[in-house]
């Protein structure tokens, strides 16, 4: 008798992964139905870090609500702040100085490198290799130092605000970024030598967790996870913001759709981020870092939506304004939520041991999913 995959039948084993589990990168709870060692169904169970951020934002002013978004996807905090600032600027119809735009992109791309590095270390650790974690944090710490010097924080920056930036960059910023780039370029080959070319690693990644382009689109998967399936979805290319249209960089696409393809997208994306930073670091225009805005911001009545590309995919901010000083409703479209929904599709029919590799390549940040 052929069993229908997806329905629980007698003899199936149901196991729980999480909420406290090192491979879930937070507090995600997965209820997995197994037949022997084959996965029949994966049910993600959310809400263990639901902090009601959207509801909270309704009682915060347009300057205040940005700091909460740093805590959502804390690995792309600059990019989250950027999206919120763009939405408020769209509502206020103010233009940001060129200097602020360039610094914003520099910060975004540095954040993207830092995020992908942490992903790389954590991903290798999920598969049992501990050393890459130290290599990843070696480079990540130097980015954190740059951030700390300019923004005052290592992780939750709150640096990009409506109208520009919180403050000007530190005088050492350009020198430190150039130092980082030369350090990074001298070390990047270690990543490939240690992990990418490793035959054990490749055997665990190739052909595992296939996601077809059609499924990726229908689940709303974005970011590197979708680009690994060949779906072109880079917001920086399709709907450029703050001057991405003037920059030379490639949208990375892989067509295999398996875990290794998603891995390669992120590895190659880091090099594109380096390319973007190199184009801008010597060309930061002089001028103000902020336009003059009123002390209390009031958005006109209406609905505003902007999207940006975070390290995980498309992040959207939707503000409904009634004309007051606080938003009537805020909705965040977080990339992690849609990416997680495709996990069930990817995992069905695969072995339990490969589930961690699939989850690793989705690069989940749980507070981003639960909000």
């Amino acid at each position: 008798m052929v069993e229908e995959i997806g329905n629980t039948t007698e003899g199936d084993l149901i196991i729980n992964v999480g909420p406290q589990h090192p491979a879930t990168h937070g507090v995600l709870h997965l209820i997995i139905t197994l037949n022997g060692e084959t996965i029949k169904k994966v049910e993600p169970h959310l809400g263990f870090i639901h902090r009601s951020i959207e509801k909270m934002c309704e009682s915060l002013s347009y300057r205040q609500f940005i700091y909460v978004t740093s805590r959502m996807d804390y690995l792309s905090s600059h990019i989250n702040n950027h999206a919120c600032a763009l939405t408020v600027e769209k509502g206020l119809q103010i233009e940001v100085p060129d200097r602020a735009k360039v610094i914003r992109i520099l910060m975004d791309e540095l954040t993207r490198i830092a995020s992908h590095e942490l992903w790389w270390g954590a991903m290798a650790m999920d598969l049992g290799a501990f050393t890459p974690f130290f290599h990843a944090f070696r480079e990540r710490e130097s980015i954190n130092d740059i951030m700390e010097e300019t923004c005052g924080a290592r992780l939750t920056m709150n640096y990009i605000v409506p109208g520009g930036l919180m403050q000007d960059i530190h005088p050492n910023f350009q020198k430190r970024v150039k130092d980082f780039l030369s350090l990074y370029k001298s070390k990047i080959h270690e990543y490939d030598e240690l992990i990418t070319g490793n035959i054990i690693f490749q055997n665990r990644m190739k052909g595992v967790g296939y996601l077809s382009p059609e499924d990726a689109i229908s689940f709303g998967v974005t970011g590197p996870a979708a680009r690994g399936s060949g779906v072109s979805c880079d917001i920086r290319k399709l709907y450029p913001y703050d001057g991405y249209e003037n920059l030379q960089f490639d949208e990375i696409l892989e067509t295999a759709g398996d875990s290794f393809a998603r891995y390669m997208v992120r590895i190659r994306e880091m090099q594109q981020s380096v390319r973007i930073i190199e184009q801008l670091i010597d060309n930061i225009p002089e001028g103000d870092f902020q336009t003059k805005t009123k002390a209390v911001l009031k958005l006109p009545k209406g609905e505003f939506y902007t999207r940006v590309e975070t390290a995980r995919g498309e992040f959207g901010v939707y503000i409904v304004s009634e004309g007051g000083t606080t938003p009537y409703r805020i909705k965040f479209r977080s990339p992690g939520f849609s990416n997680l929904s495709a996990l069930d599709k990817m995992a069905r029919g695969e072995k339990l041991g490969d589930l961690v590799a699939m989850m690793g390549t989705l690069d989940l940040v749980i507070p981003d999913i639960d909000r």
Partner: protein
Amino acid sequence: MVEQTNISKDFPGQVHETPGGGIVLSKLDDLINWARSNSLWPLTFATSCCGIEYMSVAGAKYDFSRFGFEVARASPRQADVIIIAGTIVNKMAPVLKRLYDQMADPKYVIAMGACAISGGPFFYNTYSVVKGADHVIPVDVYVAGCPPRPEALIHALMTLQEKIKMGMTREQIKAG
């Protein structure tokens, strides 16, 4: 004779030499506490942002293995100290209590970051955040910050070591 002088110097207040030498006296509890404080195994437990700084502390730059914390355990049954790194929400609170109950005695708790201390940035206007992890489990050391710097976490871990050596953690006071 020279060796014994060194011993009393290494364990101030814990190892006493008798006049004339030869015999070393100490309280067994002090020796056990000293041994325990230098081999604390943390639980890999992180709910949100502070978890990344926790990972930084485990990384090579800050390196908490210098103080005996490197054996991070994924199972609460093997862990000695739970570092609450991140916000605890209502749905997570029973899970945290269960994790704490599963840990073997003696067990210690560090509340890392503003969220674990008081709810932090999520104190006002939220319906789902527990306003401080000490509503759920007893906490020994609090670290301020959002998120705390890695140095601050290391300081907290060393404060915990001192508390254990002095027999001042909640578990030890409760046990008498």
